[in-house]
């Protein structure tokens, strides 16, 4: 009995070649996280190459980033402050993207939320003497309602008139930034400066440092109540997406809109609702930033939280609970990056990570086989 061999007709020039074969089975559960982790490691290695090329010491730079973001309780607390709006904008994008609604207007909805939350304080709707128990819930509601309203516009246009939500949401970003500018220059300008007056203390979100007298460990910690809002929002969104009827409708539309239509799910209604929820979450991020960090309305309140939220959502594979650790990682990068360079390198590393993660998706659908020359 002879062995069955296929005679080779051509030989590869390389010692081995890579072949991509479509997966015929569901990949194992550990593969997803493993591939993502691998992609991040490769991204950091590529970042190291770039850092070396520009004359830096990559390992020193990474170690510095690590220390500056997670080195001690104080800086970790600052990282959490940066992560708070990112969790919320990440959630805003996750819920919209789950329905394949490309809401890239989280930045604008963030500003709308900040504007709404500031307006109730600055216009005196909340009296100056009111306690935090009144001021904060009113600001919270105002911020979310304004964010939802800013999400409603592209949602309604998409649902009723089939206008592409990417374009309307993006353009509305500029409109609301201009509205904030107008407010701080013309309406609530303090002494001619480009910012409003500082809010009364009752309108500040409590920080850990406020309890420093009771718990000495909290001394100087800037983490504020917004983080709790963000974590609660993440849990609620997870529950909605994976454990509720409505979340099922959202995922069904996102996976196959025609099937959703066939199952009797209203796409029009859900388009508007999801854009409003997405806007409300981004608006909450704006409110939390205004009330927890800035304490006044001014321009430049966001280093692009709304856009980073898109990246956070994708890295978390749209899972609301995974959004939290991803946002903390990004918060750290945002904070520590400034220690190295104001803008360039940290953004670059962010970009490389995103690229690698998107590229790594292919490994979920294909398996790679290494074929040695002559072995085939």
């Amino acid at each position: 009995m002879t062995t069955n061999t296929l005679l080779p007709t051509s030989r590869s020039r390389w010692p081995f070649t890579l072949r991509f074969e479509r997966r015929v089975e569901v990949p194992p559960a550990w593969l997803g996280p493993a591939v993502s982790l691998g992609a991040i490691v490769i991204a950091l290695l590529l970042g190291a190459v770039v850092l070396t090329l520009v004359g830096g010491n990559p390992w020193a730079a990474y170690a510095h980033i690590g220390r500056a973001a997670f080195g001690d309780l104080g800086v970790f607390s600052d990282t959490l402050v940066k992560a708070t709006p990112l969790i919320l904008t990440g959630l805003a994008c996750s819920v919209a993207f789950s329905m394949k609604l490309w809401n890239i207007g989280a930045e604008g909805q963030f500003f709308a939320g900040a504007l709404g939350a500031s307006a109730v304080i600055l216009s005196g709707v909340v009296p100056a003497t009111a306690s935090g128990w009144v001021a904060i819930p009113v600001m919270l509601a105002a911020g979310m309602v304004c964010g939802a309203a800013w999400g409603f516009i592209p949602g309604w246009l998409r649902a009723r008139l089939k206008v592409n939500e990417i374009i309307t949401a993006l353009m509305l970003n500029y409109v609301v930034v201009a509205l904030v500018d107008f407010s701080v220059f013309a309406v609530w300008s303090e002494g001619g400066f480009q910012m409003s007056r500082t809010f009364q203390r009752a309108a500040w979100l409590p920080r850990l440092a406020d309890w420093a007298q009771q718990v000495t460990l909290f001394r100087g910690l800037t983490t504020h109540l917004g983080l709790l809002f963000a974590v609660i929002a993440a849990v609620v969104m997870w529950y909605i997406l994976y454990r509720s009827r409505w979340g099922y409708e959202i995922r069904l539309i996102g996976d196959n809109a025609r099937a959703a239509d066939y199952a009797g799910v209203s796409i029009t209604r859900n388009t508007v609702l999801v854009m409003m929820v997405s806007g409300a979450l981004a608006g909450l991020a704006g409110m939390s930033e205004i009330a927890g960090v800035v304490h006044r309305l001014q321009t430049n309140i966001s280093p692009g939280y709304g856009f980073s939220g898109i990246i956070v959502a994708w890295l978390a594979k749209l899972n609301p609970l995974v959004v939290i650790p991803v946002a903390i990682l990004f918060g750290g990068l945002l904070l520590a990056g400034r220690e190295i360079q104001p803008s360039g390198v940290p953004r670059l590393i962010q970009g490389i990570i995103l690229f690698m993660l998107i590229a790594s998706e292919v490994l979920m659908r294909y398996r790679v086989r290494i074929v040695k020359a002559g072995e085939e």
Partner: protein
Amino acid sequence: MQYGLRYPRDFPMTDSPLAVEMRGIVKRFPGVLANDRVNFDLRPGEIHGLLGENGAGKSTLMSVLAGLYKPEAGTILVRGEPVHFNSPRDANARGLGMIHQHFTLIPSHTVTENILLGLDEPRFLMRLPEYDRRMAELGERFGLQITPQAKVWQLSVGEQQRVEILKMLYRGVDVLIMDEPTAVLAPQEISELFKTLRAMVKEGKSIVFISHKLNEVMEVCDRVTVLRQGRVTAAGLRSAETSIPELARLMVGRAVLFDLDKKPQTPGEVVLQLEGVCAANDKGLQALKNVSLTVRAGEIVGVAGVAGNGQTELAEVITGLRRCSAGRILVTGDDVANRSANVTIHKGVAHVPEDRTHVGSAPTLSITDNVIMKSYWQPPVAHGWSLDSAAARKKAQTLKEEYAILAPTIDTPARMLSGGNLQRMILARELSAKPKLLIAVQPTRGLDVGAIEGVQRLLLAQREQGAAILLISEELEEIFSLSDRTLVMYGGEIAGEVREHDAETVGLMMTGAKRQPVEG
């Protein structure tokens, strides 16, 4: 060398070597032995049918031959020479080409541009007019009517298939493998295709015709090889010396009951009534003209017709997926015309849609998420706002077993299911709701013999349980064996109703040559 099956030598050997000889091909996928020591031979100038159920290994075997897959063991000889393919390009160079079920054409390019794509010619200037002329000539030679300048998106499915064939012919292919070429075609297009295949064979080409439609294989093939569960059960049978029942037995391993036992039954009250319904198609042209019909409880009303005569629109109008411009649609007495799909679902209307992958299922969601699609809003799956995932999983598990959906687990995404299993999943979902009215559109299209029988039995069981069933199908045999009454659609109208199932009368009505008034 040892083979799984003795190679039949009961036919006279010709002088010319075999066009293709495959010996002891073994191809394994994780968990599946797709081809188990398979032998296959193809003579020059023949149409060789490769028959088997879904998942029998037909496409795998031919993908090995076309250079897409590498076998774990086995030899391939082309015109007597051993070959070894690393890619479809290598196979092309040896004169082998495969046309897949899903076409690989670029819609915005012309026919000529699509044919030239991937070739080394023309070198620099496109010189399209010259190539247009060559394509037209080539098409004429093989009886393939085609406009080389037309953009692919403008072409019908049948015409697109001709472009795929021309693509292969232009590459000088003389062994053409066609994977279920008739699955996407309308009846007239099928007979056109068969003519082309014969013209090609006359020119000395050899064709492998993959199919699971017995009558087509009998009609067009010279010889047939049957696969079952990755093994050859009959190699190179002459189609003239076999019969449909024999092939069916070889395919499924048991005699298929084509005579379903249908109990005589008196229909009950009217469940569905259409009165003068008019509707437009996606292009805005009138697709339904004044359609009136009734379906009673416990009765199957068949709708026969050539594809594109309004059947799809009829199903969509009734299930609330399409607006109608006139008329009334009464489901158990209530008008549901221009209401949403939601309303019809709540009224107890089940819908087995024509397009399983794009309408009937959500591809990346799990089987569980797919089977609750029509019941996620009501107990036991829903408790108020929240979904009870334990109840959903229990339902999925029960249905998976009851309807024999073959999948590793209920968490498997729907896109991983084979055609037959996907259809069983959809039927499980639709029938488990105990519908009052079932609209089934092409419920057995693309399924293998065993699966077809299963689906037809399920429909009959629904009839016995008193459901009203509107069965829209292009398979006349299916309609004749299942329905109590048959309506024929032509040009968006009901051309007539027949109770006596006479293929000739129905055929004439389907082509618009005859009309017959609808009885009571």
